[in-house]
């Protein structure tokens, strides 16, 4: 008999864990809740005896030391304890439930054959004075995301084992050949195609030429291939650019930003160690004689706005697959996150937008879950808070990989099989590629819920294990990941030069009822596509069996350069590859740029030295600057045993490292390493995106050089997150940023090897109709080679008596600085290019290699002042420095404010042992470099003024620590109990 049992797993008294929930509930303004008990809930459906349910409970569901279980038929109700309100949250039908999948599979192994389906859910008992209205608020704001979940006050009616209604699978013809412009646009918007009129015209013309109407499968394929996400039409389009300034108007026509600036820089630098740029799923450079390394950074912004955990989770999953897609083993993850201010009031949020705090919690948990479970160390990143990210949070996810040289084949041949490895295909992530190309509104969550994917890192880990074996046995001719655009993107791109024939009914599905176009477009996670010669099929199948990886042959590479899709006997698509990939009309974009002017004070905004000390403490305590240890320690940065320089360094392991250094297991018998760092400063972008690009490249280079990377062996990646490119001012800023990328990359000789853009990060308020774009946000990630990790360097002060040098010139450049920000200013004097930067980086690298540098820290956010404070607190030692000695450029009179807080590019703060001073100075000969002070035992940072040697201020280390780390004592950090 078919029944549903409900098993509630309850923590025993004293065994529940700390929960952010209580503080999150308080943050909603609901003060009555005193205690929350979180229980796991399982629904078991099928023909089960009570003995079988009891067996599943004992062997799989309950840990008897810390839990007990209640179970009953789900039709009955579990009593709610007096004084409590029960909220239960379950997943919607069709959403990936890996816990239930594992439970189901294991029950079968245990011989409980009557189990037909299982589902997992959460039950929360809230104790205290609480109204049902408040309980609904808690459920909606904190516990349940209706994009993927449903909830009830009281016991949940389970959605388990409900078969989807039987529908007929076939492709629908869509009439477009006779449509007017208006009707074409309606088709585009109703089907979420995100195609503009020129593009719809091209589609119509193609099918008029073919003498037939397209099928829905064909239309969806074209829309996906031509989406911004997959086709990068803005970066490849033609831009009419107009820049106006006091000096007049400059007009330019730019044929592709990508070719003109980004790829042009790589070409011009022509570094012999670049193996692959802008061709593969990731950029690849030489590492050692035997190994090459790859790097890719992606964004997953829109999904993270709607479902933060799933969005960030699959963001990591996706970029890791990019690395698997170049046949490499992932060895490090990076993440840069941007959120609205966490303290913002709910009333200030635009309609339909999740609270930044919820997004933050979800995103961090999502990254933690995927990276840790994949066994990839998360070693570098940043977190930035700004009002501009309230409706559009940014989630940049990066991954570094390693592979033996020449082990990545990239040529599918006619006759090869098209093989799908890994996860099954469901409705998850439909329209993700086109969805990422639209602006968010208050209704996006409702209309695009399907665009959210849920990840299963263990499935991906198993696929990775299987692929590495297949790679070493050279079983495939090509490989790529199934990401944005699903099979459509992966298979049709891989087969562009050959042609493919695919049977969609051979794609393994999670559940029945998917239409052919849904199978083709689904962005279900953890899938890889391989081109496998038929003679290798059985060996690959064996490897997959050994690793519990599902493998399906879904078609063949042909030689006719057409895309043939079939569903059983029906042909559902037949397109020429040339049209699909080259038929998109070049987008024409208008771009205008006028530099905005912000208030900038004429005179000083301080009077006595104590003011500057207070300012320093305020900058150190700023959410963007202060320690992120509470987040960073939730990521495993040690797994794989290669993390030589960790995210935190210093005497108490709590100083902020400039970059991570890795020595991968593959080279554990020698000493080369990899430095991974990044540069990101959207505050400069508000003033001038050109300056932002220059500064981001400079910072990324500084970060990796500071830990020991060779400045002549650094590759960089560009990741643009921008507003709507159809708005000429947004586009104008984008042009400025690309020009900055070109100039900055050439200046440092750092080629771009990969990049990605996420545009349309705008939000339209449904009520007011107001549009808002995010701040222009360019992330530059750097991957540098460290010749010998034994010479790598950390930023913590090492010993009293050490001499402190400032390398690089300081200018009066306070525009966009944190100093201005804490005074409510933006300013205009944004940092410019550091002319001496490359030469000083090379000289500094030689000094580090010669063992002359004890500690090195780059000067970035907060300038010299913050760098001094961070080095001191990390080393547990004080410093005495004199501003009179700071090397400066420009004609400005020396003033302590800009000497301390200016964020000029190209600068490093360095500790040198006294006995090495002469040799260090000889290395730095001709460079802007001065000794500005020394390290002292006494625990304070003392700064002398610019004129003589009068003390401007002296700050105890304890005060500096309190400013930078004081917030970590709050409820979000683990505390001792018992």
């Amino acid at each position, binding site marked *: 008999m078919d029944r549903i049992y409900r098993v509630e797993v309850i923590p025993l008294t004293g*065994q529940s*864990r700390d*929960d*952010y929930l209580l503080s999150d509930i308080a943050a909603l303004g609901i003060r009555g809740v005193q205690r929350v008990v979180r229980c796991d809930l399982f629904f078991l459906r099928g023909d089960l005896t009570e003995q079988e349910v009891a067996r599943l409970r004992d*062997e*799989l*569901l309950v*840990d*008897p*030391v*810390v839990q007990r279980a209640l179970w009953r038929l789900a039709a009955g109700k579990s009593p709610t304890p007096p004084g409590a309100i029960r909220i239960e949250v379950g997943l919607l039908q069709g959403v990936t439930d*890996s816990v239930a999948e*594992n*439970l189901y599979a*294991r029950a079968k*192994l*245990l011989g409980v054959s009557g189990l037909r389906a299982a589902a997992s859910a959460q039950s929360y008992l809230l104790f205290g004075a609480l109204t049902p209205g408040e309980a609904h608020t808690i459920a909606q704001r904190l516990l349940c995301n209706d994009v993927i979940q449903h909830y009830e006050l009281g016991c949940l009616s389970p959605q388990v084992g409900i078969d989807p209604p039987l529908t007929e699978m076939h492709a629908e013809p869509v009439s477009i050949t006779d449509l007017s412009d208006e009707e074409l646009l309606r088709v585009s918007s109703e089907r979420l195609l995100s195609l503009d009129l020129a593009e719809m015209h091209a589609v119509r013309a193609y099918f008029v030429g073919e003498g037939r109407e397209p099928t829905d499968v064909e239309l969806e394929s074209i829309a996906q291939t031509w989406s911004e996400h997959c086709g990068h039409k803005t970066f490849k389009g033609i831009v009419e650019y107009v820049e106006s300034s006091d000096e007049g108007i400059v007009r330019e026509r730019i044929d592709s930003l990508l070719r003109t600036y980004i790829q042009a820089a790589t070409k011009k630098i022509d570094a012999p160690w670049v193996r692959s740029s802008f061709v593969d799923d990731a950029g690849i450079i030489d590492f050692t004689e035997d190994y090459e390394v790859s790097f890719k950074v992606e964004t997953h912004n829109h999904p993270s706005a709607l479902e933060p955990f799933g969005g960030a989770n699959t963001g990591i999953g996706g970029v890791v697959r990019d690395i698997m897609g170049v046949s490499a083993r992932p060895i490090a993850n990076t993440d840069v996150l941007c959120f609205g201010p966490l303290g913002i009031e709910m009333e200030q949020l635009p309609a339909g937008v999740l609270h930044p705090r919820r997004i933050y919690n979800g995103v961090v*948990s999502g990254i*933690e879950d995927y990276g*840790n*479970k*994949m*066994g990839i160390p998360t070693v570098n990143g940043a977190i930035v808070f700004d009002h501009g990210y309230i409706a559009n949070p940014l989630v940049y996810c990066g991954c570094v990989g390693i592979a033996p040289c020449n082990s990545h084949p990239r040529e599918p041949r006619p006759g090869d099989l098209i093989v799908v490895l890994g996860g099954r295909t469901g409705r998850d992530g439909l329209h993700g590629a086109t969805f990422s190309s639209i602006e968010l509104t208050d209704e996006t969550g409702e209309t695009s819920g399907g665009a959210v994917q849920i990840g*299963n*890192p*263990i499935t991906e*880990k*198993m696929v990775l*294990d299987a692929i590495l074996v297949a790679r070493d046995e050279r079983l495939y001719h090509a490989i790529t990941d199934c990401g944005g655009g699903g099979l459509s993107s992966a298979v049709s791109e891989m087969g562009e030069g050959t042609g493919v024939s695919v049977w969609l009914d051979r794609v393994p599905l999670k559940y029945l009822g998917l239409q052919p176009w849904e199978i083709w477009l689904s962005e279900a996670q953890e899938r890889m596509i391989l081109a496998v010669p038929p003679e290798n099929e059985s060996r690959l199948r064996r490897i997959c*069996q*050994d*690793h*519990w990886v599902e493998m399906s042959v879904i078609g063949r590479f042909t030689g006719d350069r057409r895309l043939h899709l079939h569903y059983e006997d029906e042909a559902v698509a037949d397109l020429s590859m040339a049209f699909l990939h080259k038929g998109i009309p070049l987008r024409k974009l208008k771009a205008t740029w006028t530099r905005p002017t912000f208030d900038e004070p004429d005179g000083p905004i301080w009077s006595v030295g104590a003011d500057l000390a207070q300012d320093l403490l305020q900058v150190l305590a700023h959410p963007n600057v202060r320690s992120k240890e509470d987040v960073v*320690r*939730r*990521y*495993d940065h*040690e*797994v*794989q*045993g290669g993390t*030589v*320089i*960790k995210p935190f*360094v*210093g*005497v*108490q*392991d709590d100083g902020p490292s400039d970059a991570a250094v890795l*020595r991968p*297991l593959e080279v554990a018998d020698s000493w080369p390493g990899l430095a991974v760092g990044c540069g990101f400063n959207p505050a400069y972008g508000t003033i001038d995106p050109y300056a932002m690009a220059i500064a981001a490249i400079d910072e990324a280079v500084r970060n990796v050089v500071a830990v020991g990377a060779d400045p002549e062996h650094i590759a960089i990646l560009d990741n643009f997150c921008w507003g709507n490119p159809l708005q000429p001012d947004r586009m104008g800023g984008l042009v400025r940023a690309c020009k900055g990328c070109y100039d900055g990359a050439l200046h440092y000789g750092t080629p771009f090897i990969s990049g990605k853009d996420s545009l349309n990060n705008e939000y339209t308020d449904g009520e007011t109709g107001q549009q808002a774009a995010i701040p222009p946000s360019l992330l530059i990630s750097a991957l540098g080679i460290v010749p010998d*990790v*034994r010479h790598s*360097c950390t930023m913590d002060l*090492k010993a009293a008596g050490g001499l402190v040098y400032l390398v690089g010139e300081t200018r009066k450049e306070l525009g966009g600085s944190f100093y201005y920000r804490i005074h409510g200013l933006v300013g205009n004097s944004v940092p410019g290019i550091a002319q001496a930067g490359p030469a000083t980086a090379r000289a500094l690298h030689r000094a580090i290699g010669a063992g002359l540098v004890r500690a090195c820290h780059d000067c970035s956010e907060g300038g010299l002042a913050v760098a001094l404070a961070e080095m001191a607190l990390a080393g547990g030692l004080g410093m005495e420095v004199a501003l009179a000695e700071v090397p400066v450029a420009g004609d400005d009179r020396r003033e302590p404010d800009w000497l301390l807080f200016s964020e000029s590019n190209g600068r490093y703060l360095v500790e040198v042992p006294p006995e090495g001073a002469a040799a260090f100075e000889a290395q730095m000969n001709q460079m802007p470099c001065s000794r500005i002070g020394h390290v002292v035992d006494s625990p304070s940072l003392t700064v002398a003024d610019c004129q003589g040697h009068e003390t401007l201020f002296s700050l105890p280390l304890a005060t500096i620590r309190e400013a930078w780390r004081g917030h970590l004592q709050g409820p979000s*950090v*683990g*505390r*001792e109990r*018992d």
Partner: protein
Amino acid sequence: MKRPRVLIMHAPGTNRDREAALACELAGGSAEIVHINQLMADERELRAYQMLVLPGGFSYGDSLGAGRLWANDLYHRFSQALDAFVAAGKPVMGICNGFQALVKAGYLPGNGWRQRVTLTHNRSGHFECRWVRLRASAENRCLFTRGLDEDILCPVAHGEGRLAVADEAAREELWGDGLVALTYFAPANPADNTKLSPSVAARRPAGYPNNPNGSVDDIAGLCNHAGNVFGLMPHPEDHIYPQQHPRWTRGEAGGLGIHLFRNGVRAARAFT
């Protein structure tokens, strides 16, 4: 000298297999990473090896609790071979997820399969990665911690590492029978890196974050009564080179986790 064969058991989702293998190799063993399916298909036989390591990771995604499904494998599919391996006195080491699996399968602390000890969610409610100091407890039976003359420094990286006991009796038994192999230890001065005596008469609570998960009595690792089965939450395999030390650029050294593997391999040699 003959290198004993060490089997590193790879389950779906384990991810510190390679480091564990490397540590065993450095310690003088000959390590082989073997997928659980190869054991099930009888392509490899446990008894052909002299030492077994269950590495860290997230077997089966830790669905239904950390290490639980892997534990289910151990007692439903391998119990015969594993029981014989343990009874013979061959060294078995479970690290992190491997420790969780051994505990939940009843191999640790052993003595009948009803589970009286567990590893559950950290008090902090989330995953944590940080370095800890481990001290071998006095008069414990564990062969892996024998002769340690300094504390071990290595990272933890887990979300479910809090050791909890069913009752006071279980707790007393762990200590009374010498089954507590390692404890989290708070140095008097965080910067203090001098070698410390491994035995302390009076235990003082390590406190968070030295005890990173809230384990009862700061217990970090357990052994069985025979001393040949050993499990711990921290990762000694991630500190086998001086450059993995978090403060090596400050000239700090010592506390390598390799000692535990050397002891294991040394014991395994008796079975070659």
